[in-house]
């Protein structure tokens, strides 16, 4: 692995070396390293680019890492990863994509992740998007995530895009069966002339299903952010969506709540707030010795932690 690749691996998956457990590292369009375990199989797809990750029922306390690295300027790919998670599992999946583009051509990764989560399983999904490089070529990512939670399944998604991605469209569509629960924590920071759009739609089909969608955004420079959080309550369910943004410089933020109830026992809440950093917050940190710029940075870092 080159130094650039190692560095990206650390940024997107916090990895210094090969991870324990199952993994598939994709680098510049090819599988660079793979490990399977007794319970977790990884199979290359034949019809399209991508892999199937198959996790046996009852698999507990195991993890799968599937980082993607792009360091060739001009590489464009669409990758399909399907996760088949059996009943009664408890697993962690670390995904993430890093693009280093030092060339003049746009590099782009479109990942389509589908999760089929079995009954009473728990899944923690962590995904980080990162871009770097000095080239004029853009770094583009368009992740699509499809989540299907069976009865009593629980999934928490922690997704973040903190630096260096020029343009992104993130689509998340989830369907929840009875007693299923979905939690999403999405964080995004845009700067310069970056654009980011996130659209999440949750269909609460099951009785007593619940979801909690939390989006935090910071738009700096001349960047543009759009967040749409949609919950469709089709049964007795609890849905909560919260969209909280800090606007700086000439940033633009569009937050759109969309709640639809089709059942009298659906209880749905949406909160959205956009505002600049409060003067009092800056003052407090300045009394503790930070200058205005440092105070701003600390507030943003905390907000996106």
């Amino acid at each position, binding site marked *: 692995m080159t130094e650039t690749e190692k560095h990206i691996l650390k940024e997107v998956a916090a990895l210094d070396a090969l991870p324990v457990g199952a993994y598939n590292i994709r680098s510049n369009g090819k599988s660079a390293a793979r490990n399977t375990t007794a319970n977790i199989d990884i199979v290359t797809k034949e019809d399209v680019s991508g892999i199937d990750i198959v996790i046996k029922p009852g698999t507990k306390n195991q993890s799968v890492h599937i980082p993607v690295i792009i360091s060739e300027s001009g590489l464009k790919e669409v990758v399909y990863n399907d996760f088949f998670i059996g009943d009664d599992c408890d697993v962690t999946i670390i995904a993430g994509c890093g693009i280093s583009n030092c060339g003049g051509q746009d590099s782009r990764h479109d990942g389509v992740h589908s999760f089929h989560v079995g009954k009473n399983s728990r899944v923690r999904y962590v995904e980080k998007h990162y871009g770097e490089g000095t080239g004029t070529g853009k770094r583009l990512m368009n992740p699509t995530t499809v989540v299907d939670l069976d009865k009593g399944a629980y999934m928490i998604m922690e997704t973040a895009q903190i630096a260096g991605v020029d343009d992104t469209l993130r689509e998340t569509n989830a369907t929840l069966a009875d007693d299923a629960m979905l939690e999403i924590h999405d964080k995004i920071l845009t700067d310069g002339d970056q654009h980011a759009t996130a659209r999440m739609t949750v269909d609460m089909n099951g009785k007593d299903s619940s979801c909690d969608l939390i989006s935090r955004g910071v738009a700096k420079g001349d960047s543009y952010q759009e967040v749409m959080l949609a919950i469709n309550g089709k049964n007795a369910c609890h849905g909560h969506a919260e969209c*909280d943004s800090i606007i700086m410089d000439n940033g633009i933020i569009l937050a759109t709540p969309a709640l639809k109830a089709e059942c009298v026992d659906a209880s749905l809440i949406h909160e959205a707030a956009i505002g600049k950093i*409060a003067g*009092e*917050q800056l*003052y*407090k*940190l*300045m*009394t*503790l*010795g*930070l*200058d*205005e710029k440092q105070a701003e940075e*600390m*507030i943003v*870092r*905390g*907000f*996106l*932690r």
Partner: protein
Amino acid sequence: MLELKNVTYAVGDKVILNDINLKTDDRFVAITGPNGSGKSTLVKIIMGLITPTTGQILFNGEDITHLSINERADKGISFAFQQPVRFKGLRVSDLLKLAYHGEKNIVDACEILREVGLEPKEYRDRELNDTLSGGEMKRIEIAMAAARGSALTLFDEPEAGIDLWSFHSLIRIFENLYAKTAGSIIIISHQERILNIADKIIYLKNGTVEAFGPKDDVLSYIANAEQKGVQQA
């Protein structure tokens, strides 16, 4: 060490502070006076949160009127707000570490929470968001100011909203802070028990210093003024 010369602050045609002249290097100075008399405005001017319309602020002989908040912090002034500020995502330990100039690790920096009656282990990882109660925020605010150990520390109504916490603990914090810094502590308060520990008291009314002097003199001045007020009514 602290001197205010002809400090006036007006917003539009409303005069909030009117020609304040003060000079102090005492250990404990209390500022008291009716609601809206300008007490918080005065300490915000000293810390640099507000720039006076006219006048000068001198600290250790240096004119600091045009210094920023953090430049004043570096010179040795700190300030516990009347209304503590909340931060989404920042933890108690983040700010305490900062208060100690980054010189202590998280665990050591949080030990000071004990002094304000909070168990460090329970609070250090808490976010300073609206899950902390008003009284908890207030105690953490006091702990941060104490942690900084500045030559001049300003406390804006430190006792407000922390009813159940013993008054003695608060006095002990002031004493510990003084033992550490041998500096000055200025406390805004309406509480007689706090006024009683002061060396000097500033009595503010309608944006002017009505009385400034040794505790006993000012306390009897206030008592007399109130007496007159009652007689006139």
